[in-house]
């Protein structure tokens, strides 16, 4: 698909040949995740997270479909139906814990995947579309996760819905009518719960569709790699199957082990106790906090406290959305032709400062409001925008990158050219010998 030496699909059995001639799905699969997709041979473990994200999406969709068979989207019974799933539905508790903690698992993977992209410049040409489709998936995930969190109809569900839909009322003039239209009422209630359930069921399939587009877009230039150097010839690559399927098998094992610790031994550690109290519009929780994956954005939202031209709330909402939307423009903000931060000494420092900054924002997002925390949040939010909108363009203009390796195989094999044979050539006389060797 992506490179001239990608092997075309050759059916080995008459049956597959018959199918392939009529409906070339085997050919598609072979070219997408089989032996027909050459991948740079120097990928590190951070490249496991794309497959892991796909796994997390599948886990969420499968457990979600079964949970939906037992859940009622009825404001008077949603909370009870979740408890029924936990207590009376056979193995219901496993499904529910997997789905509930699965959201965190999915976001944890996605965050590592995004930071991988930021560090190795995966958003740069020719992979801009891949990156932007990824940011689209991230936005869809945020909407899905928020609506899913409302469904158990606990205290945090209810008040979270109240706060998030309240963002729309920050929009001048049309804000309040828009909020009422979206909620189907003045406050979250039956109408809101039913539409959230409907959308929570729909959006994951849209995510799956965008994921297919993303993989398609990825397969045009092929995967990036830790050196950021383009693939030059066949010896820079290995076929996806069996090499990366084997590596992903190991990665999936490790990820599921970590996930299982949370499901079986710490199922409440990522949630909030208030969500085990049924929603009560008359009692506001002492401390409304979103789930951990929204903490940094919540901190940005709360950091705007003065009405300067626009009301503070509108500033907060604009900044919070901008904090995500800025990711769409990264390709144009960072003009450095060097992709990998390994060869960008200045950007690398700012990258790690950004990681620390987002961790600080996360801390502030869940902390009690004290003058110190508010100040910390304001400084960290300011740095967030400073990084993407001011530092990044300047660094990419003035930085002097380190010399890049000539090729991927050279960087992997430290110049020992005699070792960098293309796959399949080594076993002498093998039938899969590459034609390149004849030159």
């Amino acid at each position: 698909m992506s490179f001239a030496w990608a092997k075309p699909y050759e059916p080995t059995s008459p049956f597959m040949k018959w199918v392939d001639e009529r409906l070339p799905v085997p050919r598609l699969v072979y070219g997408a995740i089989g032996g027909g997709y050459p991948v740079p041979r120097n990928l590190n473990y951070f490249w496991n997270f794309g497959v892991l994200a796909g796994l997390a999406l599948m886990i969420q969709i499968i457990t979600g479909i079964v949970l939906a068979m037992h859940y009622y989207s009825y404001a008077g019974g949603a909370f009870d139906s979740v408890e029924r799933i936990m207590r009376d539905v056979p193995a219901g508790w496993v499904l529910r814990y997997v789905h509930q903690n699965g959201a965190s698992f999915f976001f944890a993977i996605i965050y590592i995947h995004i930071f991988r992209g930021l560090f190795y410049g995966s958003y740069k040409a020719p992979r801009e579309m891949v990156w932007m489709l990824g940011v689209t998936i991230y936005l869809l995930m945020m909407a899905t996760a928020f609506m899913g969190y409302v469904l158990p109809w606990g205290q945090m569900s209810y008040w979270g819905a109240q706060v998030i839909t309240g963002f729309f009322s920050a929009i001048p003039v049309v804000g309040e009518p828009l909020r009422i239209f979206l909620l189907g009422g003045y406050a979250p209630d039956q109408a809101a719960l039913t539409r959230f359930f409907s959308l929570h069921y729909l959006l994951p399939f849209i995510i799956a569709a965008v994921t297919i587009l993303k993989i398609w877009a990825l397969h045009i230039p092929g995967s990036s790699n830790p050196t950021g150097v383009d693939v030059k010839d066949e010896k820079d690559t290995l076929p996806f199957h069996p090499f990366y399927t084997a590596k992903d098998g190991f990665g999936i094992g490790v990820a599921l082990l970590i996930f299982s610790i949370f499901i079986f031994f710490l199922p409440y550690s990522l949630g909030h106790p208030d969500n085990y109290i049924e929603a009560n519009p008359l009692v506001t929780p002492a401390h409304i906090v979103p789930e951990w994956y929204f903490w940094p954005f919540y901190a940005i939202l709360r950091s705007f406290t003065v009405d300067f031209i626009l009301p503070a709330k509108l500033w907060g909402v604009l900044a919070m959305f901008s904090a995500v939307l800025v990711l769409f423009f990264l390709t144009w903000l960072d003009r450095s032709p060097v992709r990998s931060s390994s060869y960008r000494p200045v950007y690398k420092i700012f990258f790690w400062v950004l990681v620390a900054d987002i961790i600080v924002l996360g801390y502030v997002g869940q902390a009690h409001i004290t003058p110190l925390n508010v100040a910390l949040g304001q400084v960290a939010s300011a740095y967030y925008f400073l990084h993407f909108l001011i530092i990044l363009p300047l660094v990419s203009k003035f930085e002097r990158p380190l010399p890049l390796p000539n090729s991927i195989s050279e960087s992997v094999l430290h110049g020992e050219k005699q070792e960098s044979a293309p796959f399949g050539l080594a076993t002498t006389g093998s039938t899969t010998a590459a034609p390149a060797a004849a030159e």
Partner: protein
Amino acid sequence: MVRIIGFFIGLGFVGVLLLSLIVNGVDSIKNPPPATAEEEFHLGAKDVRFASDGAFGRFDREQVQRGFQIYKEVCSACHSLKYVSFYQLKDLGYNEAEVKAIANQWAIEVPTVNPETGEPSTRKALISDRFPSPYANETAARAANNNALPPDLSLITESREGGAHYVYSLLTGYRNQQGYRNAKGQELLKEFPDVKTPAGLHFNPYFANLNIAMPPPLTSDGQVTFADGTKSTVDQMAKDVSAFLVWTAEPTLENRHRAGWVTMLFLLTATVLAYLAYRNLWANAKREVSVRGPLEPAFRERMNEQKAERGIAG
């Protein structure tokens, strides 16, 4: 263009944030937020150990049974347990006959409809029933409790920070407010004279706002006579009922731990095998040596062709 627009948007956000920082900073220096009694005197849950804690946790069935007895004799007068059914008591080691007797002799009857007149009525509980609520509705509950609503206890250990540790601390945490000092030695009523517990509330530093509507439920040693002969001190009773409430919040806890270990063992084996398969494949890919000269496959192919042309066998 993107960079220029971005630069100004960035300046805008940073500017407003710095303005917010200055305004808040000046404000908090001029009017520092006053210390509150809750901040200074609220206590976190006590450190206490339950058999169900940890990855190997199991219920101590005798303890949970004692806890059930306390719920039955003390808590159930005001608190419902609406997500738990009588038949589930079998999990605690009661046999069918015992559970039937418990349901049949439960002090509160289950609301029903008189089959002859259609009038609302009550009947004795069956084992398939959930534990009946002591009050007909929220209004009745509040009317009987000085306008406070006794919460349902089914999920109490999940819905409070600290879980069972919090419940235990709360039950044993009632203090006399007069002369109460915190760990720093500050005296509550001297520091905050206006937080005196109002009539009808009870001082308890483990409760979020220090004053709880529930009167101390476990007041004296020997309040409940345990069937198994355990000495019923207030501390023991508080521990036992907390252990029972862990069970009511998650009756499947033991299954969860057991299934967890089986899953971990399976995944660990699968992961080790996957790792070995991965290393095995890649070991070859990394060590492969390019073949040059007479052993080059293309060369050998050409040589074989030439041999065939010349009619040389082999």
